[in-house]
């Protein structure tokens, strides 16, 4: 990132943190109209610095690593596919994976904010799934929080010299799961229980979202490993350019 770009990102970051501190807390995707106005706006503003960083990061990829553009399109498409698949789960309800983990592992977490936003926009506008008023909150959980956790876990595993495939699995699965933990938290913040407050609500929402998501997170982890295996066999030059193969012994 250039100096100017860094400045814009940090300015937006400071702005959004202050913005979110000021309003007092009153009291899968979140459904349209189901977050109070203040929450909707606050989550949206909180996303701004990440979206800006994502834009710059994608710009950089476009201008400096043109060869990897196809790969970038593929990781975006991966999120597109996975979030269209509503898979039955052991809790007797369905949910869908996020698919943002693959991109976070290969490109880092920032570009996923933009790619995830595109997926969410498609679903909110055409499918009545999620919503425009809850777009900020959903972007934060699926396109920002999830990918950052994925990236963090992946880096941690790498520094601990965990087997690379195991690292990819853990990172993608836990990032997916974390997305829905954040969703539960967002809903709990908006709907604290009369008895027990936010904590009690959090437990309730977690029992729906996080529990349903566990098998799906495992599926996302396994699928992501499968895709990475394929990319490692055929797209080595691109992966090397992304620094993905750095430190890995030549296979």
């Amino acid at each position, binding site marked *: 990132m250039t100096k100017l770009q860094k400045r814009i990102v940090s300015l937006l970051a400071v702005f959004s943190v202050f913005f979110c501190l000021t309003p007092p807390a009153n009291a*899968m995707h*979140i*459904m*349209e*109209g189901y977050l109070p*106005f203040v929450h909707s706006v606050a989550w949206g503003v909180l996303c701004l610095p990440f979206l800006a960083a994502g834009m710059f990061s994608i710009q950089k990829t476009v201008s400096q690593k043109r060869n990897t553009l*196809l*790969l970038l399109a*593929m990781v975006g*498409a*991966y*999120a*597109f*596919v*996975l979030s*269209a698949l*509503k*898979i*039955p*789960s*052991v*809790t*007797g*309800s*369905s*949910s869908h994976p996020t698919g943002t983990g693959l991109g976070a592992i290969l490109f880092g977490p920032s570009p996923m904010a933009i790619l995830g936003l595109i997926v969410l926009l*498609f*679903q*909110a*506008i*055409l*499918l*009545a*799934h999620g*919503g425009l008023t809850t777009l900020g909150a959903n972007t934060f959980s699926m396109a920002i929080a999830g990918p950052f956790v994925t990236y963090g876990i992946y880096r941690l595993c790498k520094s601990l010299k965990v087997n690379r495939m195991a690292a990819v699995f853990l990172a993608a699965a836990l990032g997916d799961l974390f997305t829905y933990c954040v969703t539960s938290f967002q*809903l709990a913040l908006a*709907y*604290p*229980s*009369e008895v027990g407050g936010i904590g009690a*609500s959090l437990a*309730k*929402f977690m029992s*729906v*979202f996080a529990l*349903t*998501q566990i*098998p799906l997170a*495992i*599926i996302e982890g*396994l*699928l992501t*490993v*499968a895709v990475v*295996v*394929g*990319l490692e*066999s*055929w*797209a080595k030059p691109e992966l090397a350019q992304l620094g993905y193969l750095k430190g890995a012994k030549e296979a």
Partner: protein
Amino acid sequence: MKNKGLLVIILLLVCGLIAIIPLALISDSEFGGADGQAEEIILEIAPDYEPWAESILEPPGGETESLLFSLQAALGAGIIGLGFGYFIGRSKHQKEV
């Protein structure tokens, strides 16, 4: 190379199994969306809450909705397939040269 192919097949099979097992074990459920359940919890906690916005376009029915969802999946899968096709073709070409 052969081992990798086997690994991918096993991974995909396990994914399929994880998705199918709940269908086979739980027979008295329609597997509705988790967001619908969350809506129920919200009603429980805040019975008076009125959603203050509605989706601008709501698919008229299950058929149109599934059309759009499959369109989404198809677009994504198409791009992924295109990418892999390009990469595989390239490595084959490089081997020949």
